[in-house]
Structure formats: C-alpha cells, structure tokens
C-alpha cells in the first residue's frame, strides 16, 4: 500500500468539502429543473418561429425575413408547469413520447391564444466565429460580439455592413470587453487589446494589474474596477487612455468586488457607478445587500451611496434616463435616483418567478429589459407596466442601442445561437440570409460535448504530420452514426466528404471519404449534428485512421474538422493559438497544412 501523500490528503479534503456542499441539494432540484425545461420548451414552441438571418438593424435592403417572434404571454400562462403545448407529438431523440393526444394537451392546444400586447424581436445569426454565451458590447454604432471563452474570436455587426468577421485578438481568454466611442478594449487572461472598428485592427496593450471585474468608457478613458483578493480588501481601479495605451491608477473603490456576474460598473455621463460586493467561493457575501458607490473622474474620489435593497447575489444594474435600475435573482426590481441619491422604496417585482439564473438587464430612456435564462420582462417606463417575454433558449448579454432597441445573445438548447433584438415599437427589420446554415453547423461541430485532450498542435502543418489523412472537399450531406450512447457516453457521427484535394493519406480526388467526429452521445446533440448538414459546404479534415468509427477515419480531436462559408474563416473543430489564428479561409488553412 502506498503511503498517504498530498494526493490522498487533497482528495479526502475535497470529498469532505463536496459532502458539505452537497447537503444543500437534493434530487427534487433535478426533478424540478427537468420539469421546468420541458415546460419552457413546450410553451415556446407554439409561439416562436426561429430562423436565422443576418441583418438586424434598420436601413438594410428589403428582403424576406424570418424572425424570432417573441410574443408576450398572458399572466395565467406564465407558469411553465401549466404550459404543455408542443409543436409535435413526439421526440424520438429523447425518447419523449410527447403530449399530443393527451386530454390535457388537447385542451391547451384548442384554447384561445394569449393576447398580444406588444413586443417583437428579430433574430440575427450569430457571427461566424463566435460561440454562444459570448459578450456583446456597443462600439461606435456597431455591436462587437466576442466569444466568452477560449481565444476571443470576434465579429462586428453594423447597419451598413452586416456581419464582419475580425481577426481574433491574440489573447487566451476573454475577461472583459468594453465598448467606447470609436474603440473597444478587450482584456484577456494574458494581455489586452484595443480594437479600431474602422480598420478592424487590434493593437496589443498591457492589461490592468489585476483581473478586471467590470469597466466603462467615460468618454476619455476606459475605467476598470479590479478584483479584490479578499473580502477585507478594496477593489483597485485603473484607467487607460486609448491614445496612449497606458494604465494609471485611480482611487480605490470604497469596497471590494470580485465576480463579474455579481457586479455592475456603469457610466451615467458624469460618474462611474459600482454596484456589487465581494462573494466567497461558497457565496457568502461581504454585505447584507448589494452596495453602491459613485466615482467622479474630475476629483478622483468615490462617494459611498446608500446600500441597495437588493440581494448581494446576482444584482445587476443599468443606467438610463437619469436613474440606475437594478434587479436581483429573486426578480426584485429597484431604482436609484441619481440626482436625489436615494433608492425608491418600496421595491417592486418584475413579475417573473425567482429564477435559477443570474439576471441580465438593459435600459433605455423608455424601457427596461430584463432577461433571466428563458424568461424575460419588459418595463414600460412611461406606463410602469411589465410585459412578460418567453424565449426558447438562454438570453444573455444585453446591449442597449442608442435608438432604443436592445440586442441580446440567444442560445437555444441545441446550441444554435443568434442575436435577438428587442424593439419597443414593434418595428420589423430584415436583411439577406448569408451563410447561416454553415455557421450553425460549424458551431455544432465545435461543441461536441467532449473537449480536446490537449492544446492544438502549434500549426496546421504539425497536425498534418500527426494524422493519417488530410483532405479538402465538400459535404455530401450523408451521415452515419454508430456506437450509440454507451456506458462511457461517446458516439461517433460520420460525415461524407467528396474529396477535391488530397494533402496527405490514401484518398482519391473525386471520390468520397467518411470522416467521423466523436461526440458525447447526448441524443439531442447527436440529432443536431446530423440534421441540416450544409450540403456542398467546403470542409478541410485532419483525420486518424481508426477501426471503431464509421468510414475508417476520425477527425483529430478538437482540431480536425473545419467548415467555412465561402471566403469565410474556418469554423468548427479548428485549433487555437497563434499558428491557427488569422486564417482567412479554408484555402489559407489548406496552405498552412501542407
């Protein structure tokens, strides 16, 4: 028997910690979560028509449009457990026999539709290189979308140009993005970069000296509030003039903050507002409620404002119309008068049920839009009335546009992503459809539920050396799945490729090969991967010869199956790192692989 060592001791300690944490949970939580998700899926299927379009803002050419139509539901329809409506009767992918035909379901389907009061949203395809859950910031008159993890792939959406893919800043991860008047600041794990949207160029700049929790553009500087190491520390604050790219230290905040999703850093035109507090890893807060303070740049001084009436957990805020508006996970809603320096009391409620989700909030002069996973609420700031919204996926990262609209990420359960625009006046917008099917397919390819073992080989040529087959071609649409969900969860799905060029391996131009990818066996994910394969789309695969996957080839884990829109950058399972970034299209990847 081996002597007890660090591994044994740390393992035992971690199990004790897990056991203590587990005391707060029981199986009922899982059952409730399963019911809730099923309920949301059911109710939204009847109301939301989803298709992917690329343009979202006014001024685009007239086109046929498919929209996400998000219609408000009557209050009585709000409870997910009372919403059994489904779009069809069965779901073979999950073994779900469906509800159609049951007395309760029939009754619901024949009931009158809920009244429609207002609100339409339109969807825009996610930018080609950005995954779900990304960060959105407004910069100039455009929206900058960034992947939230991994190398921060980026794209800009503008009313004139539609989506414009950007070279990725050479950062290991995305920690903070701030939009400015004509530039955006992105802070990663190992550096920072400024984006000039006019030239689509990134300029490397030094990062702040500590991890940023939030930040704003003040009109002169990017100001970031930094993570406090402990509950007893204050958060440092730093400012960067984008013209010099240099940081300078500002007065420390009057309290510490440490998590971006519990913290809001805002600019109201004259002062930086900080709402939040410090939370331990076990979610014990440093204060009873979320704290509030204001920083005046001209005096480099902070003013402690009255503590908020909101939970110290997941309180999020926005500023518009001379007021700070905030919401917490319990859907308690509060407003702070920036002139009078007081919170409006008593607080109110958004009307949504307290949620498992951290809420997001965006505000304009006329409306407040709150989203919380699959639900949302809109406050008409004139009438004071709330309207419920429902979505068929997570809705996050709102950005308020100057024209009164708000833009949100929309991530469906199957991994499809889009942007959702909330338009208070119900105006419709449109644009031409471009490359949406390839984009969606690439995103599904990138999230197989199984992360690659290691970092990608340094260059495509290195990977080509490792594998047995490198071919370019087009997808025929044929697929084949094997190994079904097994004890270890993995499955294989083969995609047939008509070969147009062979870089390495035993394949003939003009013939076909079947290249598998491994995924985690989740039936929903498998169905999504096999469905809507963009026939004719260009691909480049790096694959190993195998015996246990259909076709005899399996794509190199995490790096070996790239697809692209015409002249677009490689999507899907593509390596990261400097040797892989900046590849303009599949031809560039092909050249790099030789």
């Amino acid at each position: 028997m081996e002597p007890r060592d660090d591994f044994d001791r740390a393992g035992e300690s971690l199990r004790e910690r897990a056991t203590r944490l587990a005391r707060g949970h029981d199986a009922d939580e899982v059952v409730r979560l399963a019911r809730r998700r099923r309920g949301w899926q059911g109710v939204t299927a009847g109301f939301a028509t989803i298709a992917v379009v690329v343009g979202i803002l006014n001024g685009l050419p007239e086109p046929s449009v498919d929209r996400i139509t998000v219609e408000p539901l009557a209050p009585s329809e709000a409870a997910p457990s009372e919403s059994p409506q489904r779009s069809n009767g069965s779901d073979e992918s999950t073994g779900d026999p469906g509800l159609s035909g049951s007395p309760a379901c029939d009754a619901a389907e024949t009931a009158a539709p809920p009244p429609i009061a207002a609100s339409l949203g339109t969807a825009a395809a996610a930018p080609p290189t950005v995954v779900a859950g990304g960060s959105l910031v407004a910069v100039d008159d455009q929206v900058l979308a960034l992947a939230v993890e991994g190398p921060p792939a980026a794209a800009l959406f503008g009313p004139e140009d539609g989506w414009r893919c950007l070279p990725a800043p050479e950062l290991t991860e995305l920690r903070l993005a701030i939009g400015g008047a004509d530039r955006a600041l992105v802070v990663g794990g190992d550096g920072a970069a400024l984006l000039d949207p006019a030239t689509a160029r990134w300029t490397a700049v030094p990062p702040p000296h500590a991890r940023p929790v939030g930040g704003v553009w003040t009109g002169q500087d990017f100001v970031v509030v930094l993570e406090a190491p402990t509950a007893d520390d204050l958060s440092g604050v730093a400012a960067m003039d984008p013209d010099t790219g240099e940081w300078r230290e500002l007065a420390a905040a009057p309290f510490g903050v440490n998590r971006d999703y519990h913290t809001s850093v805002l600019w109201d035109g004259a002062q930086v507002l900080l709402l939040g507090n410090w939370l331990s890893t076990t979610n014990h807060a440093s204060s009873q409620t979320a704290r509030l303070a204001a920083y005046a740049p001209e005096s480099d001084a902070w003013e402690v404002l009255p503590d908020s009436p909101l939970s110290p957990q997941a309180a999020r805020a926005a500023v518009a119309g001379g007021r700070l508006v905030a919401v917490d996970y319990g859907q308690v809603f509060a407003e702070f008068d920036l002139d009078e320096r007081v919170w409006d009391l008593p607080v109110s409620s958004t009307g949504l049920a307290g949620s498992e989700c951290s809420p997001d909030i965006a505000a304009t002069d006329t409306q407040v839009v709150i989203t919380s996973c699959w639900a949302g609420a809109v406050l008409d700031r004139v009438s004071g009335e709330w309207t419920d919204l429902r979505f068929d996926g997570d809705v996050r990262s709102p950005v308020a546009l100057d024209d009164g609209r708000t833009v949100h990420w929309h991530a469906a359960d199957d991994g499809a992503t889009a942007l959702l625009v909330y338009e208070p006046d119900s105006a419709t917008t449109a644009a031409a459809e471009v490359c949406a099917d390839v984009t969606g397919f690439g995103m599904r390819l990138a999230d197989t539920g199984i992360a690659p073992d290691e970092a990608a080989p340094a260059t495509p040529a290195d990977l080509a050396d490792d594998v047995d087959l490198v071919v370019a071609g087009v997808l025929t649409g044929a697929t084949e799945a094997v190994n079904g969900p097994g004890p270890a969860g993995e499955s294989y799905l083969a995609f047939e490729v008509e070969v147009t060029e062979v870089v390495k391996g035993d394949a003939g131009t003009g013939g076909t090969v079947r290249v598998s990818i491994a995924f985690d066996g989740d039936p929903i994910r498998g169905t999504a991967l096999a469905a809507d394969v963009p026939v004719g789309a260009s691909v480049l695969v790096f694959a190993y010869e195998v015996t246990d996957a259909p076709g005899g080839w399996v794509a190199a884990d995490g790096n070996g199956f790239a697809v692209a829109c015409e002249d677009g950058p490689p999507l899907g399972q593509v390596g990261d790192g400097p040797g892989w970034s900046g590849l303009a299209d599949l031809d560039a990847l092909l050249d790099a692989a030789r």
Partner: protein
Amino acid sequence: MPVTSMVGRAIAETVDTGDFAIFYARHHASTLAVVLALRGRDVPAEEIAQEAFLVAYRRWDEVAVMDRPDLWVHRVALNTATSRLRRLAAEGRALGRVVARSGGTEAVPDHDADVRFWATVRRLPRTQREVVALHYAADLSVADVATVLGCPEGTVKSRLHAARERYAALIAEEH
C-alpha cells in the same frame, strides 16, 4: 413516488423519483467532488454536477439498469465540465440554487494547500487531471476509473504515474 406532473408526463412513465433520489443521495457528493477537482469554483461546479444528474434523470430508464450508473454519471460530469457551451449554461444558472441553502449551510473554508494542490492538478494535461480527479477526488478504484474513461486499467495507472511526475515537476517549477 412517481412523478405525476402533467409536464413531466413524458418522464414519469419511466422515472421513479424514489429510486432516483436514492441514487442521487448516494452519488451526488462524489460526482461533485470530481467537478470541483476539475473546475475549482464551487457554485458552477454544483451546477455542472446537477447537469449530469439531470441527464441521468432524463434517461433514467436507460441509466437505472446499468451495472454502475454512478460511473456513467461521472463520465457525463466529466464531459459537462469540459464542454464550453454546457459549462456556460451551467454557470449562468449557478446563482439561484444557492438561495436554497443560504443561511442554512455553514461556510466551507478553502484551505490554501488544497486550493493550490487542485489548481496545480488543473494545469496537468486533461487525460492526467481526469484520472486524478476520478481516483483521488471521487475515490474510485483504478478499475472504475478505467470504466469511466473507457480505457484499459494499465492506461489509467500510467496516466496516474505521469500525473504524479508532472505534478512534482510543476511544484518544483514554482519553487
């Protein structure tokens, strides 16, 4: 007690929540330990573990009849912890859950030595940190780890050995 909710009907035909609750109670902490080892942060880790059990619940008719459903759930938890999109979704849902236990659960201190240990483990290659998490955090035998990962026991042993060597090298680099 069977689930009888109208919305839960599709699941109810096969799920006996009593059986599932027993399964959950027995294996939740172990699964959570694996995710904690791989991810580090408590709240998202709890969500990721919940996601794994949610998958098991949805497929309980298949999972319940497995010889070792606990090992299957560990595998799902591993996948979930390493899938970007799944992890993002779990982290986004992380906050509300703490409500139920706020005030009712004592603070769980982070011991510096343990934090450093697992932070170092997370710097190991994925194949190595997974075997460490399963063997030491979940206290699974080498045979069970092999089952979870779908590889031979000898591979698990060699990965554990490599992990220990790499860990020692990383610690040496820090000093």
